[in-house]
């Protein structure tokens, strides 16, 4: 298990290699190792990979794994403010704590998880995803119109590829490369990492723009304390991550962005999000690791992988003669609980190791840009190439780098674009399935109705708030 933790952290730190690739590389060993070696290794690897991924995300603005992309929005700006240690402390602590609390939530849901998963149909998933898309409006700071345009562009990116129902290509321009859509890693690296590195190269200096050198250890401890100060936010985000984790096929990217958007929507200072606000780091990182606990519960209890990396774990379980599903929890309760507890121990060890090293990692923020820029760009492009072994991915990264630069300089909202991209394709798929299976009756489903109410509330809360504020100002002026 300890080896799994160390491997997971390394896999997480290296951009372009995520838990899926790490688990796939381990599979040949899983064929020959006993179950009590193979399974703890695999679970521990997955449990901590996004913890490791937070390090490159915060320090270099290169997502360690795609699910870390939401942390870019405030993690890297904190590094630019000279608070790299604080960002790391907050990210690592919230990750570890999110993973741990998700296990307790999983244990509480063991008696009812099968009922819950089987009750949620495609129509429900479509509207749950629509709630997530609605948060594009929340993410739009400054110009709402630019935010919505960014989100629409993200939705446009999400429809590129072969349409799932008809099998016909859309916006592929005859290119085989785009048949399965725009790949996620080149988009994330191009959109977020490249514009920041070019700004660094053009502006000179270091990533940390403040002249004050803040002591590494104290900074890290401050970040740890931030998680306890914002315990309600951490809990809220962990619950969001866990719930999305138990829904098969939604994925960690949706969990982290939804948690971020919800954190902003409920914050007393939403205008600070995106400028280097520690809540903007705590929310997505908590959701990251909490999602894994939910996904593992679904994998064990229902026999359906909760996320893409769980598909590999599921295969390993089957090969070891276990059949995950409703009987797994009753016939192999001890093994199931052990696997869940490995997430707890793995997160404890992983977070502790990273926190110990965080003050040293944080010094990267003070390395001169002329040294860092070529190194980071080399790592970024190598990671993109390692993703699928294709030159086209590198070219796509360059193209999205240009788009990222343009959108950044013109004040368009890159997180909203990314959220539209992540959720758009899934929303379309489940909407079509929902219409096909439920027809117009889908609007009578309780979950759908609840989601519609939430969407209305999210979209109208801002204008209503402003309207009440104007009225109360008028009233006090007249008084």
């Amino acid at each position, binding site marked *: 298990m300890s080896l799994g933790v160390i491997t997971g952290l390394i896999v997480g730190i290296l951009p372009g290699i995520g838990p*899926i*690739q790490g*688990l*796939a590389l381990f*599979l*040949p060993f899983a*064929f020959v190792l006993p179950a009590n070696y193979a399974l703890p290794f695999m679970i521990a690897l997955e449990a901590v990979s996004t913890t490791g991924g937070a390090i490159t995300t915060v320090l270099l603005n290169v997502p360690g794994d795609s699910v870390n992309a939401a942390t870019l929005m405030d993690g890297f700006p904190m590094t630019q403010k000279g608070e790299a240690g604080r960002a790391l402390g907050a990210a690592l602590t919230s990750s570890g704590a999110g993973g741990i609390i998700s296990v307790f939530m999983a244990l509480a849901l063991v008696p009812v998880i099968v009922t819950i*998963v*089987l*009750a*949620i*149909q*495609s129509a429900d998933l479509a509207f749950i995803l629509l709630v997530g898309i609605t948060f594009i409006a929340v993410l739009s700071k400054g110009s709402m119109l630019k935010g919505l345009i960014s989100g629409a562009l993200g939705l446009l990116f999400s429809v590129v590829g*072969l349409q*799932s*129902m*008809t*099998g*016909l*290509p859309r916006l*592929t321009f005859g290119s*085989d*490369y*785009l*048949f*399965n859509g725009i*790949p996620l890693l080149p988009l994330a690296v191009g959109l977020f990492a490249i514009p920041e590195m070019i700004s660094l190269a053009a502006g000179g200096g270091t990533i940390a723009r403040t002249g004050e050198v803040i002591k590494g250890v104290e900074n890290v401890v401050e970040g740890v304390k931030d998680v306890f100060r914002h315990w309600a936010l951490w809990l809220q985000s962990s619950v969001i991550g866990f719930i999305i984790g138990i829904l*098969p*096929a939604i994925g960690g990217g949706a969990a982290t962005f939804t948690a971020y958007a919800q954190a902003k929507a409920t914050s007393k200072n939403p205008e600070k999000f995106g400028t280097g606000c520690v809540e903007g780091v705590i929310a997505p990182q908590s959701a990251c690791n909490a999602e894994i606990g939910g996904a593992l519960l679904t994998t064990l209890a*229902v*026999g*359906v*992988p909760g996320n*893409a*990396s*769980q*598909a*590999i*774990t*599921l*295969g390993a379980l*089957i*090969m*070891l*003669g276990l*059949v*995950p*599903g*409703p*009987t797994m929890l009753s016939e192999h309760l001890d093994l199931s609980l052990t696997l869940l507890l490995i997430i707890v121990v793995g997160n404890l060890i992983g977070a502790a190791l990273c926190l110990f090293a965080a003050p040293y990692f944080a010094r990267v923020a003070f390395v001169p840009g002329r040294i860092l820029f070529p190194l980071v760009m080399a790592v970024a492009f190598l990671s993109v190439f390692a993703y*699928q*072994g*294709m030159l*086209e991915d590198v070219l796509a990264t360059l193209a999205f780098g240009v788009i990222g630069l343009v959108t950044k300089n013109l004040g368009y909202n890159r997180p909203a674009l990314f959220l539209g991209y992540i959720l758009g394709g899934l929303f379309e*798929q489940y909407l*079509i*399935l929902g219409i*096909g*299976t*439920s027809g117009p009756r889908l609007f009578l489903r309780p979950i759908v109705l609840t989601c519609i109410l939430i969407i209305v509330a999210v979209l109208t809360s801002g204008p209503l708030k402003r309207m009440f504020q104007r009225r109360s100002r008028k009233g006090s002026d007249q008084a």
Partner: protein
Amino acid sequence: MRAFIAGFIVVMLCAVPIASSGAPKEALTPVEFYSAKQVEMIVPYSAGGPVDFGARLFATHWPAYVKGGSMVVANTKGGGGTASLNFIMKGPTDGLTVGGTSHPGAVGYPLYKAAGVRWKIKDIQWIGMVYRDVLVFSLSPKSPYNSLEELKKAKGLKFGGLSPGGNISLGPGFISALMGLDATVILGYKGTTEIALAVAKGELDGYVEDAAGVIKRIQQGMVKPPLVVLSKKRSPHFPNTPALPEAIKLTPEQQTWLSFFQYVPQGTSIFVRDGVPADKVKFLQDAFDHIVAIPVFQKQMEAYYGSGSEPISGKELAAEVAQLASIPESAVDNFTATTDKYMFGKK
């Protein structure tokens, strides 16, 4: 003097590679070739699924036959799915790129003229099929129906499918057409696991999947035991479940349609593109035959796919696929036109 020595060293360092590049190379035998090289097996799907598992297991045992050689699996290289298959089929012909794919994907997509396919079935050189299975038709545990006869009286049935042109999508359409069911096949699910989950929820009334997979679904309580096997013979996994010709009387044309499922069975097949030299193809086929006979390999296959899933050699597979060439194109067109009537969005 120093300059002379330095120059001499530089000239010698340059001379050796220049001299060796000019020397005539002896052609390597396939054994020598593969023993010194790394083979890349491209799997068009993400890691962790049944196709990936079979391909990876094969790759793991490659060094047992090819001493000194290695085989690595690259998932979704080329873009995944049809794009990866296009990528393999227009790739190098040195024999170092091998495809490990779902057999219906490699054969079915060009057969049924799926969008974006840029290869022909005859261009594929078969190395072998790691496991082979048949499709079975199963219903939801929430369904009130328990026989094919009861289904004939049902209204508004919904079955699940993937993208157009695959066996999983065509199977329910075929059964619906044979029996004249009031049914729709809802396409767009991402995988058979997703379809099975929808069936378990009652969102769908039924679906088709390979027999080994359905055994696990039954154990998980997701589906009922199958009603029929989409094959001319029964499945060893379900010896009490009738084959389609036993359950439904088929016309000669419908028997031809059934043969599509026989000649395009479920399973993971390994292949190389046309243009790879015959001696290398033979070496790969011999390697395949050797690896699938390794007792440890067989045990691992059985642990994952269950007993009754047999590998097929490249030559046998090629002979089977060649049978498709004898079927007139009009039969394929009639088949897809008939099943299209049941597809959501085309009704």
